[in-house]
């Protein structure tokens, strides 16, 4: 395994509300980082409702899971599933027939401690909710990515999660806005990025547009970031660059300018 950095960054990807795109983000960001040559391990902590193996297309390779690791049925090495495409990308699967209580926060911290020396990035896929599963998922992480959709209920839950992360002394909390539709924002029918930042008051990590290609890539078990032409892939790639410490300008999904609107209203242009 080729580790690039001496230290290891441990991210948790969380949201409060379910279905906003956490697992999709974990699959794409980890694949993107691996493509850049980093050694990466993703940890699926959605015990009982695992999906990460499917989105990464690794469901047939799973033998052991994290609960079996902590219960001593297998070693951590044995449980790690190697990615099909990138030799330095691994997945630690969740258990499907168990539940969130079969794991403690201390055990998750222990597993991460064992993984740290061998990886540049550990990315934890957090279950929805604010209960045990969430607590387990944030226990070992030092950075958090809060995923939200431009929708009032998702924003409310994101705000709750940010509050809880702050109480847990997280210093590095960043926002990933998923499924934005610039056309709707322009028409005044969707919250804009600026709106979300104003409400949540945290730094923006990335903006991923609504992209029907996400469903297709999920069907195939190939993260969309590998389909470089797609808009979601470009967005995820920018996030990967930012996670690597590079400064990348945000894609122009901006709302129509005031002048644009003025022109339109007076029948100029268009």
């Amino acid at each position, binding site marked *: 395994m080729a580790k690039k950095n001496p230290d290891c960054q441990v991210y948790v990807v969380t949201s409060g509300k379910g279905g906003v795109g956490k697992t999709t983000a974990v699959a794409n960001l980890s694949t993107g980082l691996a493509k850049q040559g980093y050694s990466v391990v993703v940890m699926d902590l959605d015990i009982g409702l695992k999906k990460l193996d499917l989105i990464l297309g690794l469901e047939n390779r799973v033998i052991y899971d994290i609960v079996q690791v902590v219960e001593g049925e297998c070693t951590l090495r044995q449980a790690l599933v190697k990615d099909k495409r990138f030799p330095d990308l691994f997945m630690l699967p969740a258990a499907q027939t168990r539940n969130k209580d079969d794991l403690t926060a201390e055990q998750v911290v222990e597993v991460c401690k064992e993984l740290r020396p061998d990886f540049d990035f550990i990315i934890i896929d957090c279950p929805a909710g604010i209960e045990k599963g969430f607590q387990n998922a944030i226990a070992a992480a030092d950075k958090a990515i809060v995923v939200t959709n431009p929708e*009032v209920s998702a924003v409310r839950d994101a705000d709750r999660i940010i509050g809880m992360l*702050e109480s847990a002394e997280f210093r590095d909390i960043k926002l990933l806005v998923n499924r934005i539709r610039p056309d709707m924002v322009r028409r005044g*029918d*969707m*919250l804009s990025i600026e*709106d979300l930042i104003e*409400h949540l008051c945290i730094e923006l990590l990335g903006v991923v547009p609504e992209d029907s290609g996400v469903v297709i890539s999920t069907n195939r078990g190939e993260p969309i970031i590998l389909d470089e032409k797609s808009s979601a892939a470009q967005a995820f790639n920018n996030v990967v660059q930012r996670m690597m410490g590079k400064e990348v300008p945000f894609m122009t999904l901006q709302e129509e300018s*005031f002048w644009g609107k003025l022109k339109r209203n007076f029948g100029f242009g268009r």
Partner: protein
Amino acid sequence: MLNFLKRIFSNGQPSSRSRANDRLRVVLTHDRVGASNHLMETLQTEIIALIARHMEIDGTPEVRLITEGRHSALDISIPLKGR
């Protein structure tokens, strides 16, 4: 000012986006301090009653939550009658 102009150009009707923003502003402010509408009303009545016991109130007193970044504060404005 910009908002005002925007309002004019969007044929008077507030957009669903601006409704969402207004609603979120209230909900998040209350969520962050765990204050319900009921609690806010109770606070308002009790604070005004307390002040009224010692001073003469003139006009409409206001008790509301305001936010600065992720921090919240109780904004109390009670106009008093001069002598």
